[in-house]
């Protein structure tokens, strides 16, 4: 782990099935880097878990893949950035799940990205020379 300043932290992880928990365990240890109340930090943790789960499910199990998580506080913006070199995936292009009132028709997946987009104040995606870079911005509500 490298501390780049009082309010910045980053860490790299292997993208295996223990990765979501490893990343969220690390996040809770360093959540003080972000100027957010506890309830909002719990929502940030959920978004991080969903992003990492997505990396593991869609790329991490086919080959050795690592990802890096960075936390930054810049003025009023608390940001979480996750970078991975798995297959290109833009969460902003993922279709929203169709919600129904029927158990039979309820979609099996698609809720992770939906949760992120419903919780984060901003979601940004860039593909930087083959590296997926997703930045989530949170502000105190």
């Amino acid at each position, binding site marked *: 782990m490298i501390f780049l300043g009082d309010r910045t932290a980053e860490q790299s992880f292997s993208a295996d099935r223990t990765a979501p928990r490893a990343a969220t365990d690390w996040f809770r240890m360093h959540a003080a880097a972000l100027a957010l109340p506890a309830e909002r930090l719990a929502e940030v943790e959920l978004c991080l878990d*969903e992003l990492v789960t997505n990396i593991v499910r869609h790329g991490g199990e086919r080959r050795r893949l690592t990802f890096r998580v960075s936390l930054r506080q810049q003025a009023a913006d608390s940001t979480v950035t996750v970078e991975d070199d798995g297959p290109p995936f833009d969460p902003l292009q993922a279709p929203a799940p169709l919600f129904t009132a029927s158990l039979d028709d309820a979609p099996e997946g698609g809720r992770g990205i*939906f949760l992120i987009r419903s919780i984060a104040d901003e979601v940004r995606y860039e593909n930087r020379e083959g590296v997926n870079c997703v930045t989530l911005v949170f502000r105190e509500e």
Partner: protein
Amino acid sequence: MELTFEDFEDGVREIHLAGRLDMEGADAIDLRLTSLAAVQRGFVVLDLALVEFLASIGVSVILRTARALSSRGGRLVLLSPRPGVADVLNRTQIDRIIPVFHDLATARAAALA
């Protein structure tokens, strides 16, 4: 993630989960929950009181369990989610298709209804 269950004479099965229902948690309980739901007319109360964290992968496990029970004439209801867990159920609108209760007596009655 820990899973325990109790069967009662009235036909209700209470399943208690404890821990984090994330990818590791889902991996730990998925097969066991599937086998517990593979019964004819299974009326199951899934107690979430000790679930500290629910991610979408856990929502999918709950949804599959509810579907498995429903397809065999049974029913799943959820009991006592913590606020953070209840928020995930609400945001994903799962609470519109799988009933959520906060007291055991009502949950048991709803499972059998």
